[in-house]
Each structure stands twice: as structure tokens, then as C-alpha cells.
């Protein structure tokens, strides 16, 4: 691991909503090209953190840089990242081709580039037959895969995926993770949140969050070793159980 380049640096990040602390002094780094997992129960603060990193939300305090850009210049950060939210967010009343065209165009690609890369993309995903179909008419699994493809269409440095696989069937989830690997192999850093523990095993490193704090951060194997558990799921139940209720 020589010459590891940090693409995200976060130090002492705090986000408060009134008296509620959603993110309590988060400190972590993400390296270029890795798949970085954010694990936590619902309400642990994953989405809040990802929204701050994407420039959709202001941190209350703390320092952070994303893709080498300071948090104070969110619009510059936005040029260099891709984002897929847990709410499906392509336009239902536009076709697959039109959605790709829209986002490609917003990121400053020319129509020629868009056409060429769109064709490559749809062929690679074997989605060519869906090009002229309205997004709204496609099944959820397909939509999610397309949303991911659109999020990395402009070749960002980092792509943020906020619970990308929630609500899709196991086969689609598997295919989705194949897409994630393929993306990481192109040198795009993948930052992914999930509450599926088996997915944590697919990550290079995972962060486990509980009640707004990071309780563990390492590779899945190292974590299992340190806490002496067979799976991340077991580990999660052991260390991330909220004090007030069962996980």
C-alpha cells in the first residue's frame, strides 16, 4: 500500500439538528479506488454524513475535504462526484436515453460524447433494448442499476451510494455489487452506505456507525478478527446495539 492517495479526509465532523446530534465527531479518511462501506442501523447518521460529503448539507463543525476540495466550496466538489440517493431519483417521465442525456449534459458533456458513451454503457449492461423506454415503466431493480450507471456516467472521482440496494431482490443486489466492483476497478472510489450486513463483506473497509458515532473502522477481516466474530453481522449486533433499544 504505497502511495495511497486520500480522496476524502474528514476530521471532527459534527452535525446537529437542534439538540439532536446526528453526526458526533466523525473522523476518517477514504483512499482512492477503494470501496468504503458505511454501516449502521436506521437513524445511525449514515445518510446525514453522506449528504454533507456531497455538499447537500452544511456540517455544524469540523473539517473535511472531498476530492481534494475543501467543504467550503461545495459546487467544486459536486463537479467531481456522483451521487445516488436512497430515494429513486431518475425522471420517471423521461426515457432511459433522455435521463442519461440530461445528466451527461448537466456535467458538461457534449451531445456527441453522451451518445457515444451511452451506447457503450447500455451495451455493456445489455440494456440496449430499454433505451427508448420510459424509466417509470421499468422494474425497480433495473431502475436502481440505471441510477447507478447515471451516477458514474460522467466519470466522477468518487461516487456516493446511499443505500442503493434497499428494496431490491437478492439477484439484483448481487448484480449491483458486480457493477460496484467494476466501477472501483476503473479507479472510481465508491462510498456506499448499507444496512445489509452481508454487503459489508464486499467492502475494502467498513465503518460501523451507531447513534451518530463511529464505533469501528477497518477491513472486514480485521474487524472480525479483532472482535472474534464469524460474520460482520454478529459483530454489528455486538458493538453497534443502541443503548436504548435492541438493534
Amino acid at each position, binding site marked *: 500500500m504505497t502511495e495511497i492517495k486520500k480522496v476524502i479526509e474528514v476530521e471532527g465532523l459534527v452535525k446537529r439538528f437542534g439538540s439532536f446530534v446526528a453526526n458526533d465527531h466523525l473522523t476518517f479518511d477514504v483512499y482512492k479506488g477503494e470501496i468504503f462501506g458505511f454501516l449502521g442501523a436506521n437513524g445511525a447518521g449514515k445518510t446525514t454524513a453522506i*449528504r454533507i460529503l*456531497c*455538499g*447537500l*448539507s*452544511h456540517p455544524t463543525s469540523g473539517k473535511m475535504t472531498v476530492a481534494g476540495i475543501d467543504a467550503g466550496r*461545495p*459546487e*467544486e466538489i*459536486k*463537479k467531481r*462526484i456522483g*451521487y445516488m*440517493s436512497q*430515494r*429513486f*431519483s*431518475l*425522471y*420517471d*417521465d*423521461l426515457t432511459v436515453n*433522455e435521463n442519461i*442525456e*440530461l*445528466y*451527461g*449534459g*448537466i*456535467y*458538461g458533456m457534449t451531445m456527441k460524447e453522451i451518445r457515444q458513451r451511452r451506447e457503450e454503457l447500455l451495451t455493456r449492461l445489455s440494456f440496449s433494448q430499454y433505451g427508448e423506454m420510459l424509466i417509470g415503466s421499468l422494474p425497480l431493480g433495473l431502475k436502481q442499476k440505471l441510477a447507478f450507471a447515471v451516477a458514474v456516467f460522467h466519470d466522477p472521482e468518487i461516487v456516493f451510494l446511499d443505500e442503493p440496494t434497499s428494496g431490491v431482490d437478492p439477484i439484483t443486489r448481487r448484480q449491483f455489487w458486480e457493477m460496484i466492483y467494476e466501477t472501483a476497478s476503473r479507479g472510481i472510489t465508491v462510498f456506499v452506505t448499507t444496512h445489509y450486513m452481508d454487503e459489508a463483506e464486499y467492502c475494502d473497509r467498513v465503518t460501523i456507525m451507531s447513534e451518530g458515532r463511529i464505533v469501528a473502522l477497518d477491513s472486514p477481516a480485521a474487524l472480525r478478527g479483532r472482535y472474534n466474530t464469524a460474520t460482520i453481522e454478529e459483530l454489528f449486533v455486538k458493538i453497534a446495539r443502541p443503548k436504548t433499544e435492541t438493534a
Partner: protein
Amino acid sequence: MFLLRKEFRQIVRNPFMIRAIIAVPIIQMLILVPAVTFEIKRIDLAVIDNDHSPSSRELLARLSGSSFFRITATPVNIEEAEALLFSGDADMALIIPGDFSEGLAGITRPRLQVLADAVNATSAQLSWNYLTSVVRDFNRDIVIGEGAATAGISAAGSLQASLPGIAVSSRFWYNPTLNYKYYMLPGVLVILITAIGLMMTGLNLVREKEVGTIEQINVTPVRKWELIASKVIPFFIIGLLDLALGLCIGWLAFNIPFEGSLLLFFACASIFLVAVLGLALFFSTMASTQQQFLFVAFFFVMIFILMSGIFTPTESMPVWAQQFNWVNPVAYLMRINRMVMLKGAGFHDIARDVGMLTVLAVAFITLAIRAYRKRA
């Protein structure tokens, strides 16, 4: 611009939008223009004739002979007349005293008593005016007929039916037949584009918030003014199209005269639309659901329209209301439209209103861009 193309595609693809764009102007023009009128016809009159003389019958014949009055009841006493007014079966009650014809003959001073249902002050006022003008005519003819200058009739209330020493003949300019449709139509056109512009634009942005698609846009490096422009331009064009459609209906259905310059008319409407759309986007940045937006928008549209002078002249409103109209885009366009359509006003006649409207347009659009947050 990719965002703009996206908006147009979405509008064209939405059958409801297409129907609304075509149907709303047609329905509004055909229903509102003829329905909203201040003319009062067929006032139901209850009459107590205590005189039963040729004179009183002559007066009643004149009243029922005019197109405004219908004598619908002849109660025997005031109590009964009051009951009729209360139930709404009569709009006015006229009481002719027993000494009416004697009065006309110069023995006593004849008095008529009129009771009017003034729940609707405007219509009561108008009915009153109609009645007194009939009485005045009657009075004058009597005076002329009898050559006696002493027999003025005065009706209870404030009317002193004065003798016509000077004959006033009036002509109504710019709307010679006092056709209320001509007065209302330019105003209804304003209502039309206000409603279309404000509702469609605002709901569009708020719906994107509700569905969540706006978040995906917010995470892109798209600039705020680009986003606002992509929301304004399509609805701006729709607004102008609907205005043209409304105007065509005005010509075809109501034969409305158009005295001024079409170019000026559309130029002013364009400035107005920018102001309204800016306001719509400003409201929608503050609302997180379509219900919230509708509530706020409806509230402001009502105030803007009612205070704009469409029904009542702004000059007769209280001073604070007139001051409010400084920031009411609808009031400016209401005045401009009537000036241009009915009076054929040129640019220099309406320059002040156009200037203020431009200031508002710039202010509202700036407000929308400033208030739009790409981050929550």
C-alpha cells in the same frame, strides 16, 4: 440547454398539462367574462301603493316598464314588505304614501319611501340609482306636464330629486355602451395568466421536491440561475400562448375591441409573467409539499386579484391598500391591459406602470434565485 429540453419533454409528455393549457383559457374566458358583471337586471320590487291614484300607477308602470325592475309582490303593510326583504323574495320595497297624488298636485310635499336589501352593497347602490333615475324622469315629466315648479318628489334616504335646471347629457368614453364584458375581459386575461403561471410553475418545482428528483439535480454542479431559468422559460411560453388563446376567444366570442398595440400588450404581459413566475418559484422554494405551496399561492393569488382593481377601482381603496398595490404585479397589468386594450394607450401613457412591473419582475426573480438552496 439540457435542463430546458428536459422540462419541455416532460410537459409535452404529460397529457394533463396539455389539456390544462388549452382548456383553462377557453373555460375561464367563456365563463368568467359574461358571468362577472355589475349590471343589475330584474330587481325584484315589492310595492305598497297606499295611493291607488293614476299618478302612482303611472310611476309603477314606468318602473316595471324599465328592464331593471319587476314588481313581484304587493304587500299590504311595511311589516310584510320587511319580511319579503328578509327572505330575499324582494330586493327593494317601495312605499307610496296615501297623499302621493295630492302631493304632486302641490298640496303637500310628496314622499316616497324605499327600503333596499343592502347585504350586497354594490347591487343595492346600483338598484337605488336605477330607481331614483326612474323617479327623476317621472318627476321631470310631471313638472313639465303641469308647468308647476313646486312639486319635487323626495324619497326617504338621501335623495333630493332636484329639478333639472341644467340638462346633463353624458357620453361614456372608451366603452360607450357601458359593456361590462369589455371592462372585465382585460382583467380576466390577467387572472388567466396569473393562475396558469403561478400554479403550474410552483407545483412543478415542489413536485420535484416531493418525488426526490430535485436532490439528484442539487448534487450536480448546475448553477442556480440555470435551474431557475429552466423552470421559468417553459411556463413563460405557455403563459404567452394562453394569453394569445384568451385574446382570440375575446375577439371571437365577445367581439372585444382592441385599440392599442398588440406588441406592447404582449411585451407588458411578458414582464408580468417573469414577475409572477419568479414569485411562484420563490414560494415553492419555501414549501416542501404541494399542499403547502397551494395554500400559500392561493392566498396570495386571491389577495393580488381582489386588490388589483378588477372589480373595484383601486383609487377608492383605503390608502394602505393602494400602497400594497405597489408590490402587486396584478394591479399593474390590470391597469395596463385596460389602458392598452380599451383606450389604445401607447408606451408613454403606461411607462410608469411598465417601469414598476419591470422592477418587480427583476426583484422576484432575484428573490427566487437567492432563496433557492442547493443544500438543505
